[in-house]
Protein backbone atom coordinates (compact mmCIF):
# COMPACT_ATOMS: atom_id res chain seq x y z
CA UNK A 1 0.00 0.00 0.00
CA UNK A 2 2.68 2.42 0.93
CA UNK A 3 4.09 2.31 -2.55
CA UNK A 4 1.43 4.54 -3.94
CA UNK A 5 1.55 7.13 -1.22
CA UNK A 6 3.20 9.54 -3.54
CA UNK A 7 0.85 12.36 -2.96
CA UNK A 8 1.53 13.70 0.51
CA UNK A 9 -1.47 14.49 2.59
CA UNK A 10 -1.27 17.11 5.25
CA UNK A 11 -4.15 16.63 7.59
CA UNK A 12 -4.97 18.85 10.48
CA UNK A 13 -6.94 16.22 12.31
CA UNK A 14 -4.00 14.31 13.57
CA UNK A 15 -2.78 17.10 15.76
CA UNK A 16 -4.04 17.49 19.26
CA UNK A 17 -5.92 20.67 19.77
CA UNK A 18 -4.93 22.68 22.78
CA UNK A 19 -6.41 25.96 21.72
CA UNK A 20 -9.51 26.77 23.81
CA UNK A 21 -11.01 28.54 20.82
CA UNK A 22 -10.77 25.40 18.68
CA UNK A 23 -14.43 24.62 19.23
CA UNK A 24 -15.51 28.06 18.14
CA UNK A 25 -13.25 27.85 15.14
CA UNK A 26 -14.65 24.47 14.18
CA UNK A 27 -18.16 25.85 14.32
CA UNK A 28 -17.17 28.78 12.17
CA UNK A 29 -15.65 26.46 9.59
CA UNK A 30 -18.70 24.25 9.65
CA UNK A 31 -20.95 27.24 9.15
CA UNK A 32 -18.87 28.44 6.24
CA UNK A 33 -18.81 24.96 4.77
CA UNK A 34 -22.57 24.88 4.81
CA UNK A 35 -22.79 28.31 3.19
CA UNK A 36 -20.24 27.82 0.50
CA UNK A 37 -20.59 24.67 -1.52
CA UNK A 38 -18.74 24.10 -4.73
CA UNK A 39 -20.33 21.41 -6.77
CA UNK A 40 -18.48 19.46 -9.36
CA UNK A 41 -19.44 20.15 -12.92
CA UNK A 42 -19.98 16.54 -13.90
CA UNK A 43 -23.17 15.54 -15.66
CA UNK A 44 -23.39 11.80 -15.22
CA UNK A 45 -26.88 11.35 -16.51
CA UNK A 46 -30.08 12.89 -17.70
CA UNK A 47 -30.82 14.61 -14.40
CA UNK A 48 -28.12 17.07 -15.35
CA UNK A 49 -30.61 18.80 -17.59
CA UNK A 50 -32.36 20.23 -14.54
CA UNK A 51 -29.15 21.62 -13.11
CA UNK A 52 -28.81 24.52 -15.56
CA UNK A 53 -32.26 25.85 -14.66
CA UNK A 54 -31.42 25.43 -10.99
CA UNK A 55 -28.12 27.25 -11.43
CA UNK A 56 -29.23 30.00 -13.74
CA UNK A 57 -31.47 32.99 -13.60
CA UNK A 58 -34.71 31.44 -12.57
CA UNK A 59 -33.77 29.48 -9.49
CA UNK A 60 -30.27 30.89 -8.95
CA UNK A 61 -28.37 28.55 -6.68
CA UNK A 62 -25.65 31.12 -6.20
CA UNK A 63 -27.83 32.97 -3.71
CA UNK A 64 -27.37 29.95 -1.46
CA UNK A 65 -23.64 29.98 -2.01
CA UNK A 66 -23.65 27.03 -4.37
CA UNK A 67 -21.62 27.36 -7.50
CA UNK A 68 -20.21 24.95 -10.05
CA UNK A 69 -16.54 24.16 -10.00
CA UNK A 70 -14.56 22.58 -12.70
CA UNK A 71 -12.15 20.03 -11.31
CA UNK A 72 -12.59 17.50 -8.53
CA UNK A 73 -9.77 19.10 -6.58
CA UNK A 74 -11.76 22.27 -6.14
CA UNK A 75 -15.17 20.80 -5.50
CA UNK A 76 -17.02 19.79 -2.35
CA UNK A 77 -20.12 18.15 -3.70
CA UNK A 78 -20.33 15.39 -6.24
CA UNK A 79 -23.74 15.42 -7.82
CA UNK A 80 -24.63 12.09 -9.35
CA UNK A 81 -27.31 13.23 -11.72
CA UNK A 82 -29.11 10.12 -12.74
CA UNK A 83 -28.17 6.60 -13.68
CA UNK A 84 -24.53 5.68 -13.59
CA UNK A 85 -23.44 3.23 -16.20
CA UNK A 86 -20.62 0.93 -15.17
CA UNK A 87 -18.22 2.88 -17.33
CA UNK A 88 -19.23 6.12 -15.67
CA UNK A 89 -19.16 4.60 -12.21
CA UNK A 90 -15.45 3.93 -12.52
CA UNK A 91 -14.84 7.58 -13.34
CA UNK A 92 -17.18 8.67 -10.59
CA UNK A 93 -15.23 6.69 -8.02
CA UNK A 94 -11.93 8.07 -9.33
CA UNK A 95 -13.38 11.54 -9.14
CA UNK A 96 -14.72 11.02 -5.67
CA UNK A 97 -11.40 9.80 -4.36
CA UNK A 98 -9.64 12.82 -5.80
CA UNK A 99 -11.93 15.26 -4.05
CA UNK A 100 -10.86 16.91 -0.85
CA UNK A 101 -12.56 15.96 2.34
CA UNK A 102 -14.98 16.94 3.68
CA UNK A 103 -16.80 15.90 0.54
CA UNK A 104 -20.39 15.09 -0.07
CA UNK A 105 -22.29 12.98 -2.55
CA UNK A 106 -25.81 13.72 -3.65
CA UNK A 107 -27.72 11.15 -5.64
CA UNK A 108 -30.24 12.85 -7.86
CA UNK A 109 -33.02 10.93 -9.68
CA UNK A 110 -34.60 7.63 -8.85
CA UNK A 111 -32.03 5.74 -10.88
CA UNK A 112 -29.37 6.31 -8.25
CA UNK A 113 -31.66 4.99 -5.53
CA UNK A 114 -32.55 1.63 -7.00
CA UNK A 115 -31.94 1.55 -10.71
CA UNK A 116 -35.08 3.46 -11.55
CA UNK A 117 -36.56 2.75 -14.92
CA UNK A 118 -33.35 1.13 -16.06
CA UNK A 119 -33.71 -1.76 -13.65
CA UNK A 120 -33.46 -4.16 -16.60
CA UNK A 121 -30.43 -2.57 -18.09
CA UNK A 122 -27.23 -4.57 -18.20
CA UNK A 123 -25.12 -1.42 -18.34
CA UNK A 124 -26.16 0.67 -15.35
CA UNK A 125 -25.25 0.23 -11.71
CA UNK A 126 -28.31 0.12 -9.54
CA UNK A 127 -27.71 1.18 -5.94
CA UNK A 128 -25.30 4.05 -5.68
CA UNK A 129 -24.60 3.84 -1.96
CA UNK A 130 -23.05 0.43 -2.40
CA UNK A 131 -20.14 2.06 -4.13
CA UNK A 132 -19.96 5.49 -2.56
CA UNK A 133 -21.27 6.96 0.68
CA UNK A 134 -24.27 9.08 -0.25
CA UNK A 135 -25.30 12.01 1.90
CA UNK A 136 -28.63 12.90 0.37
CA UNK A 137 -30.83 11.25 -2.20
CA UNK A 138 -33.22 13.34 -4.23
CA UNK A 139 -35.81 11.05 -5.76
CA UNK A 140 -37.89 11.78 -8.79
CA UNK A 141 -37.62 11.26 -12.50
CA UNK A 142 -36.38 13.81 -12.84
CA UNK A 143 -36.55 16.00 -9.76
CA UNK A 144 -37.57 19.55 -10.45
CA UNK A 145 -35.08 22.34 -9.77
CA UNK A 146 -36.99 23.15 -6.61
CA UNK A 147 -36.43 19.60 -5.42
CA UNK A 148 -32.74 19.78 -6.23
CA UNK A 149 -32.42 22.99 -4.24
CA UNK A 150 -34.43 21.48 -1.40
CA UNK A 151 -32.05 18.54 -1.29
CA UNK A 152 -29.04 20.83 -1.30
CA UNK A 153 -30.54 22.85 1.53
CA UNK A 154 -31.02 19.70 3.52
CA UNK A 155 -27.36 18.90 2.97
CA UNK A 156 -26.48 22.41 4.11
CA UNK A 157 -28.48 21.84 7.28
CA UNK A 158 -26.71 18.53 7.85
CA UNK A 159 -23.30 20.11 7.46
CA UNK A 160 -24.15 22.93 9.80
CA UNK A 161 -25.29 20.47 12.45
CA UNK A 162 -22.21 18.36 11.99
CA UNK A 163 -24.17 15.48 10.46
CA UNK A 164 -22.64 15.59 7.02
CA UNK A 165 -20.05 12.96 7.80
CA UNK A 166 -20.78 10.32 5.21
CA UNK A 167 -17.32 10.86 3.75
CA UNK A 168 -15.80 9.41 6.92
CA UNK A 169 -17.77 6.27 6.29
CA UNK A 170 -15.82 5.71 3.10
CA UNK A 171 -12.60 5.54 5.09
CA UNK A 172 -14.10 3.62 7.98
CA UNK A 173 -15.76 0.94 5.90
CA UNK A 174 -13.54 1.00 2.84
CA UNK A 175 -13.47 -2.76 2.60
CA UNK A 176 -17.23 -2.89 2.12
CA UNK A 177 -17.21 -0.31 -0.65
CA UNK A 178 -14.15 -1.84 -2.26
CA UNK A 179 -15.80 -5.25 -2.21
CA UNK A 180 -18.83 -3.96 -4.08
CA UNK A 181 -16.59 -2.20 -6.55
CA UNK A 182 -14.58 -5.34 -7.13
CA UNK A 183 -17.75 -7.36 -7.60
CA UNK A 184 -18.68 -5.08 -10.46
CA UNK A 185 -15.35 -4.20 -12.03
CA UNK A 186 -13.39 -7.36 -11.42
CA UNK A 187 -10.60 -8.12 -9.01
CA UNK A 188 -7.94 -6.05 -10.72
CA UNK A 189 -9.78 -2.84 -9.98
CA UNK A 190 -7.63 -0.15 -8.42
CA UNK A 191 -7.53 3.59 -8.16
CA UNK A 192 -4.48 5.84 -7.91
CA UNK A 193 -5.52 7.10 -4.50
CA UNK A 194 -4.27 5.49 -1.33
CA UNK A 195 -7.48 5.37 0.69
CA UNK A 196 -6.14 3.15 3.45
CA UNK A 197 -3.12 5.38 3.92
CA UNK A 198 -5.35 8.41 4.10
CA UNK A 199 -7.63 6.69 6.58
CA UNK A 200 -4.64 6.02 8.83
CA UNK A 201 -3.54 9.57 8.44
CA UNK A 202 -6.87 10.95 9.52
CA UNK A 203 -7.20 8.48 12.33
CA UNK A 204 -10.32 7.09 10.75
CA UNK A 205 -9.09 3.53 10.36
CA UNK A 206 -11.37 0.91 11.86
CA UNK A 207 -11.35 -2.87 11.65
CA UNK A 208 -13.56 -2.58 8.56
CA UNK A 209 -11.12 -0.43 6.65
CA UNK A 210 -8.96 -3.36 5.70
CA UNK A 211 -10.28 -6.80 5.01
CA UNK A 212 -10.43 -9.54 2.43
CA UNK A 213 -11.13 -7.16 -0.42
CA UNK A 214 -8.28 -4.82 0.36
CA UNK A 215 -6.02 -7.87 0.47
CA UNK A 216 -7.12 -8.70 -3.07
CA UNK A 217 -6.37 -5.11 -3.98
CA UNK A 218 -2.88 -5.38 -2.55
CA UNK A 219 -2.18 -8.47 -4.63
CA UNK A 220 -3.15 -6.80 -7.88
CA UNK A 221 -1.91 -3.34 -7.20
CA UNK A 222 0.54 -1.88 -9.64
CA UNK A 223 2.86 0.62 -8.05
CA UNK A 224 2.00 3.99 -9.49
CA UNK A 225 4.61 6.49 -10.47
CA UNK A 226 3.83 10.18 -10.32
CA UNK A 227 3.31 11.66 -13.72
CA UNK A 228 6.25 13.82 -14.71
CA UNK A 229 6.01 16.46 -17.36
CA UNK A 230 8.79 16.70 -19.82
CA UNK A 231 10.02 20.20 -20.36
CA UNK A 232 11.27 20.85 -23.84
CA UNK A 233 14.35 22.99 -23.90
Amino acid sequence: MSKIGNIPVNAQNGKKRTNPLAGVFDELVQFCQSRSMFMLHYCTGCGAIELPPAMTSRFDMERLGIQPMVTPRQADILLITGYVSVKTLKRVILTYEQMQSPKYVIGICSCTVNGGMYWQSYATAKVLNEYLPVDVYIAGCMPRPEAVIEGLRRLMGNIENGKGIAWKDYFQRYDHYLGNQQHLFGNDWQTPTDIIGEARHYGLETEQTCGEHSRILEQHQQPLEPYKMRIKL
Partner: protein
Amino acid sequence: MTSVTELLAELLLMPFIAFVVGLAMVLMYRKIAARLQRRIGPPLLQPIYDIVKLYGKETQISHGLIHDIGLVMAVGGYVAAEIFLPVPGMDGIADKGGIITLSYVLMVPSLGLALGVGQCANPNGSIGISRALTAMLAYDIPFIIVVFGVATHYQSTSLVGMIEYQQIHQWGIFEMPLLAVAGLFALQGMMGKQPFEIYVAPAEIATGPMVEMSGKYMGGLFVMQTFQLYTAGVLYTSLFLGGGANWFEFLVKIFIVVAIPMSVALVFPRYRTEDMVRIMWKWPVMVALIGIAFVL
Protein backbone atom coordinates in the same frame (compact mmCIF):
# COMPACT_ATOMS: atom_id res chain seq x y z
CA MET B 1 9.20 62.04 8.97
CA THR B 2 7.04 59.17 10.10
CA SER B 3 8.22 57.12 12.99
CA VAL B 4 9.18 53.49 12.54
CA THR B 5 6.22 52.15 14.51
CA GLU B 6 3.82 54.17 12.44
CA LEU B 7 5.39 52.87 9.28
CA LEU B 8 5.19 49.30 10.52
CA ALA B 9 1.55 49.78 11.39
CA GLU B 10 0.91 51.09 7.93
CA LEU B 11 2.69 48.18 6.35
CA LEU B 12 0.41 45.81 8.21
CA LEU B 13 -2.72 47.83 7.77
CA MET B 14 -2.44 48.50 4.07
CA PRO B 15 -2.58 44.86 2.91
CA PHE B 16 -5.38 44.24 5.35
CA ILE B 17 -7.39 47.13 3.93
CA ALA B 18 -6.59 45.85 0.48
CA PHE B 19 -7.93 42.43 1.43
CA VAL B 20 -11.17 43.79 2.84
CA VAL B 21 -11.77 46.14 -0.07
CA GLY B 22 -10.83 43.39 -2.48
CA LEU B 23 -13.40 41.09 -0.92
CA ALA B 24 -16.01 43.75 -1.47
CA MET B 25 -14.86 44.02 -5.08
CA VAL B 26 -15.23 40.28 -5.60
CA LEU B 27 -18.70 40.54 -4.17
CA MET B 28 -19.42 43.47 -6.44
CA TYR B 29 -18.32 41.48 -9.46
CA ARG B 30 -20.58 38.62 -8.57
CA LYS B 31 -23.44 40.99 -7.88
CA ILE B 32 -22.99 42.79 -11.19
CA ALA B 33 -22.93 39.44 -12.96
CA ALA B 34 -26.07 38.39 -11.15
CA ARG B 35 -27.91 41.58 -12.03
CA LEU B 36 -26.93 41.35 -15.67
CA GLN B 37 -27.96 37.74 -15.77
CA ARG B 38 -31.31 38.52 -14.13
CA ARG B 39 -30.77 36.83 -10.82
CA ILE B 40 -30.18 37.71 -7.21
CA GLY B 41 -26.59 36.76 -6.67
CA PRO B 42 -24.68 35.64 -3.62
CA PRO B 43 -25.20 36.85 -0.06
CA LEU B 44 -23.04 39.65 1.28
CA LEU B 45 -20.48 37.55 3.09
CA GLN B 46 -20.12 34.94 0.35
CA PRO B 47 -16.45 35.72 -0.51
CA ILE B 48 -15.50 35.27 3.13
CA TYR B 49 -17.43 32.02 3.40
CA ASP B 50 -15.61 30.69 0.37
CA ILE B 51 -12.19 31.57 1.68
CA VAL B 52 -12.78 30.30 5.21
CA LYS B 53 -14.20 27.08 3.84
CA LEU B 54 -11.29 26.52 1.55
CA TYR B 55 -8.82 27.08 4.36
CA GLY B 56 -10.84 24.78 6.59
CA LYS B 57 -10.69 21.77 4.28
CA GLU B 58 -9.44 18.61 5.94
CA THR B 59 -7.40 17.35 3.01
CA GLN B 60 -4.75 19.71 1.78
CA ILE B 61 -2.93 18.21 -1.14
CA SER B 62 0.44 19.75 -1.84
CA HIS B 63 2.47 18.94 -4.90
CA GLY B 64 5.81 19.59 -3.31
CA LEU B 65 7.82 22.47 -1.95
CA ILE B 66 7.94 24.49 -5.15
CA HIS B 67 4.17 24.36 -5.31
CA ASP B 68 3.95 25.93 -1.86
CA ILE B 69 6.61 28.52 -2.57
CA GLY B 70 4.93 29.48 -5.83
CA LEU B 71 1.68 30.15 -4.05
CA VAL B 72 3.43 32.19 -1.39
CA MET B 73 5.11 34.22 -4.11
CA ALA B 74 1.80 34.75 -5.86
CA VAL B 75 0.06 36.09 -2.78
CA GLY B 76 3.15 37.73 -1.33
CA GLY B 77 3.86 39.61 -4.52
CA TYR B 78 0.52 41.30 -4.28
CA VAL B 79 0.88 41.93 -0.57
CA ALA B 80 4.17 43.62 -1.34
CA ALA B 81 2.51 45.61 -4.12
CA GLU B 82 -0.11 46.93 -1.71
CA ILE B 83 2.45 48.82 0.36
CA PHE B 84 3.59 50.68 -2.71
CA LEU B 85 0.08 51.94 -3.35
CA PRO B 86 -0.80 55.05 -1.41
CA VAL B 87 -4.24 55.28 0.15
CA PRO B 88 -5.67 58.33 1.88
CA GLY B 89 -3.71 59.04 4.99
CA MET B 90 -1.24 56.22 4.45
CA ASP B 91 1.65 56.24 2.06
CA GLY B 92 3.51 53.16 3.21
CA ILE B 93 6.75 53.13 1.27
CA ALA B 94 5.11 54.49 -1.85
CA ASP B 95 7.25 57.60 -1.88
CA LYS B 96 10.36 55.45 -1.74
CA GLY B 97 9.41 52.86 -4.32
CA GLY B 98 7.65 54.63 -7.07
CA ILE B 99 5.85 53.17 -9.99
CA ILE B 100 8.81 51.46 -11.61
CA THR B 101 9.31 49.26 -8.59
CA LEU B 102 5.61 48.61 -8.51
CA SER B 103 5.49 47.39 -12.08
CA TYR B 104 8.30 44.96 -11.28
CA VAL B 105 6.58 43.73 -8.15
CA LEU B 106 3.39 43.17 -10.10
CA MET B 107 5.14 40.56 -12.21
CA VAL B 108 6.08 38.45 -9.23
CA PRO B 109 2.62 36.91 -8.73
CA SER B 110 2.42 35.62 -12.28
CA LEU B 111 5.89 34.16 -12.05
CA GLY B 112 5.14 32.62 -8.68
CA LEU B 113 1.99 31.10 -10.04
CA ALA B 114 3.96 29.73 -12.96
CA LEU B 115 6.41 28.09 -10.58
CA GLY B 116 3.70 26.60 -8.43
CA VAL B 117 1.50 25.38 -11.22
CA GLY B 118 4.41 23.91 -13.11
CA GLN B 119 4.92 21.58 -10.18
CA CYS B 120 1.40 20.15 -10.49
CA ALA B 121 2.30 18.23 -13.65
CA ASN B 122 -1.13 18.77 -15.09
CA PRO B 123 -1.10 19.65 -18.80
CA ASN B 124 -4.11 21.91 -18.37
CA GLY B 125 -2.25 23.85 -15.72
CA SER B 126 0.84 24.15 -17.87
CA ILE B 127 -1.12 25.40 -20.85
CA GLY B 128 -2.91 27.81 -18.55
CA ILE B 129 0.27 29.20 -17.13
CA SER B 130 1.90 29.59 -20.51
CA ARG B 131 -1.18 31.52 -21.55
CA ALA B 132 -1.02 33.60 -18.39
CA LEU B 133 2.56 34.57 -19.13
CA THR B 134 1.64 35.38 -22.72
CA ALA B 135 -1.19 37.52 -21.45
CA MET B 136 1.20 39.28 -19.10
CA LEU B 137 3.52 39.96 -21.98
CA ALA B 138 0.58 41.30 -23.98
CA TYR B 139 -0.78 43.75 -21.44
CA ASP B 140 2.57 44.80 -20.06
CA ILE B 141 3.62 46.54 -23.27
CA PRO B 142 0.78 49.09 -23.28
CA PHE B 143 0.98 49.25 -19.50
CA ILE B 144 4.65 50.17 -19.55
CA ILE B 145 4.08 52.73 -22.29
CA VAL B 146 1.27 54.26 -20.27
CA VAL B 147 3.43 54.33 -17.15
CA PHE B 148 6.23 55.94 -19.11
CA GLY B 149 3.93 58.59 -20.52
CA VAL B 150 2.36 59.33 -17.19
CA ALA B 151 5.71 59.59 -15.49
CA THR B 152 6.93 61.95 -18.21
CA HIS B 153 3.87 64.09 -17.85
CA TYR B 154 4.05 64.39 -14.08
CA GLN B 155 7.83 64.62 -14.12
CA SER B 156 7.83 62.07 -11.32
CA THR B 157 7.88 58.31 -10.83
CA SER B 158 6.43 58.45 -7.37
CA LEU B 159 2.75 57.71 -7.02
CA VAL B 160 2.56 60.07 -4.08
CA GLY B 161 3.98 62.84 -6.17
CA MET B 162 1.56 62.12 -9.00
CA ILE B 163 -1.43 62.22 -6.69
CA GLU B 164 -0.30 65.50 -5.20
CA TYR B 165 0.16 66.96 -8.68
CA GLN B 166 -3.31 65.87 -9.74
CA GLN B 167 -4.94 67.20 -6.62
CA ILE B 168 -3.37 70.59 -7.21
CA HIS B 169 -3.87 70.79 -10.95
CA GLN B 170 -6.28 68.53 -12.75
CA TRP B 171 -7.00 64.81 -12.95
CA GLY B 172 -4.74 62.92 -15.27
CA ILE B 173 -7.65 61.58 -17.26
CA PHE B 174 -8.41 65.11 -18.49
CA GLU B 175 -4.83 65.94 -19.28
CA MET B 176 -3.99 62.63 -20.96
CA PRO B 177 -7.25 61.09 -22.19
CA LEU B 178 -5.53 58.85 -24.73
CA LEU B 179 -3.22 57.37 -22.16
CA ALA B 180 -6.18 56.85 -19.86
CA VAL B 181 -7.99 54.89 -22.57
CA ALA B 182 -4.94 52.75 -23.23
CA GLY B 183 -4.64 52.25 -19.50
CA LEU B 184 -8.19 50.91 -19.35
CA PHE B 185 -7.25 48.27 -21.91
CA ALA B 186 -4.23 47.28 -19.89
CA LEU B 187 -6.40 47.21 -16.79
CA GLN B 188 -8.78 44.78 -18.46
CA GLY B 189 -5.89 42.53 -19.29
CA MET B 190 -4.35 42.88 -15.87
CA MET B 191 -7.57 41.85 -14.19
CA GLY B 192 -7.83 38.85 -16.50
CA LYS B 193 -11.42 39.48 -17.48
CA GLN B 194 -13.11 38.80 -20.78
CA PRO B 195 -12.32 39.46 -23.56
CA PHE B 196 -8.79 38.88 -22.26
CA GLU B 197 -9.62 36.03 -19.89
CA ILE B 198 -7.48 33.58 -21.79
CA TYR B 199 -5.75 31.74 -18.99
CA VAL B 200 -8.71 30.62 -16.88
CA ALA B 201 -10.92 29.48 -19.76
CA PRO B 202 -12.93 26.70 -18.05
CA ALA B 203 -14.33 25.28 -21.25
CA GLU B 204 -10.94 24.97 -22.88
CA ILE B 205 -8.37 24.10 -20.27
CA ALA B 206 -10.49 23.57 -17.14
CA THR B 207 -9.54 26.79 -15.32
CA GLY B 208 -5.89 26.48 -16.28
CA PRO B 209 -3.64 27.42 -13.35
CA MET B 210 -6.28 26.52 -10.80
CA VAL B 211 -6.85 23.02 -12.07
CA GLU B 212 -4.85 21.20 -9.42
CA MET B 213 -5.34 23.72 -6.66
CA SER B 214 -7.33 22.55 -3.71
CA GLY B 215 -8.11 23.57 -0.17
CA LYS B 216 -5.90 26.32 1.10
CA TYR B 217 -4.06 26.65 -2.20
CA MET B 218 -7.34 27.47 -3.87
CA GLY B 219 -8.05 29.77 -0.96
CA GLY B 220 -4.71 31.43 -1.63
CA LEU B 221 -5.75 32.05 -5.19
CA PHE B 222 -9.03 33.54 -4.01
CA VAL B 223 -7.09 35.87 -1.71
CA MET B 224 -4.81 36.71 -4.60
CA GLN B 225 -7.81 37.63 -6.70
CA THR B 226 -9.00 40.12 -4.09
CA PHE B 227 -5.58 41.77 -4.04
CA GLN B 228 -5.46 41.74 -7.81
CA LEU B 229 -8.72 43.64 -8.16
CA TYR B 230 -7.72 46.13 -5.48
CA THR B 231 -4.31 46.73 -7.01
CA ALA B 232 -5.73 47.33 -10.45
CA GLY B 233 -8.31 49.77 -9.10
CA VAL B 234 -5.95 51.75 -6.92
CA LEU B 235 -3.24 51.93 -9.53
CA TYR B 236 -5.55 53.34 -12.15
CA THR B 237 -7.09 55.76 -9.68
CA SER B 238 -3.67 57.00 -8.63
CA LEU B 239 -2.47 57.44 -12.18
CA PHE B 240 -5.47 59.09 -13.74
CA LEU B 241 -8.15 59.95 -11.22
CA GLY B 242 -6.15 61.88 -8.72
CA GLY B 243 -6.11 59.33 -5.91
CA GLY B 244 -8.43 60.18 -3.08
CA ALA B 245 -8.50 63.15 -0.81
CA ASN B 246 -10.55 61.19 1.70
CA TRP B 247 -11.60 57.58 2.12
CA PHE B 248 -15.09 58.05 0.72
CA GLU B 249 -13.88 59.63 -2.49
CA PHE B 250 -11.13 57.07 -2.78
CA LEU B 251 -13.42 54.08 -2.37
CA VAL B 252 -16.00 55.45 -4.79
CA LYS B 253 -13.30 55.96 -7.38
CA ILE B 254 -11.68 52.54 -7.11
CA PHE B 255 -15.02 50.76 -7.13
CA ILE B 256 -16.08 52.63 -10.25
CA VAL B 257 -12.76 51.90 -11.90
CA VAL B 258 -13.07 48.21 -11.18
CA ALA B 259 -16.74 48.09 -12.13
CA ILE B 260 -16.06 49.19 -15.70
CA PRO B 261 -13.91 46.21 -16.76
CA MET B 262 -16.22 43.91 -14.83
CA SER B 263 -19.29 45.08 -16.70
CA VAL B 264 -17.46 44.85 -19.99
CA ALA B 265 -16.31 41.36 -19.14
CA LEU B 266 -19.81 40.01 -18.80
CA VAL B 267 -20.93 40.80 -22.32
CA PHE B 268 -17.90 39.56 -24.21
CA PRO B 269 -16.43 36.18 -24.94
CA ARG B 270 -12.72 35.71 -24.68
CA TYR B 271 -10.26 36.20 -27.48
CA ARG B 272 -7.89 33.56 -28.64
CA THR B 273 -4.38 33.95 -27.28
CA GLU B 274 -2.86 35.29 -30.47
CA ASP B 275 -5.79 37.63 -31.01
CA MET B 276 -5.32 39.04 -27.55
CA VAL B 277 -1.65 39.68 -28.17
CA ARG B 278 -2.40 41.21 -31.53
CA ILE B 279 -5.08 43.48 -30.17
CA MET B 280 -3.09 44.46 -27.10
CA TRP B 281 -0.07 45.34 -29.16
CA LYS B 282 -2.09 47.17 -31.74
CA TRP B 283 -4.78 49.47 -30.42
CA PRO B 284 -3.73 50.30 -26.86
CA VAL B 285 -0.11 50.62 -27.92
CA MET B 286 -1.07 52.88 -30.81
CA VAL B 287 -3.34 54.99 -28.65
CA ALA B 288 -0.75 55.16 -25.90
CA LEU B 289 2.00 56.21 -28.32
CA ILE B 290 -0.17 59.00 -29.71
CA GLY B 291 -0.93 59.95 -26.12
CA ILE B 292 2.76 60.09 -25.37
CA ALA B 293 3.31 62.31 -28.40
CA PHE B 294 0.87 64.77 -26.91
CA VAL B 295 2.52 64.55 -23.51
CA LEU B 296 6.00 65.11 -24.85
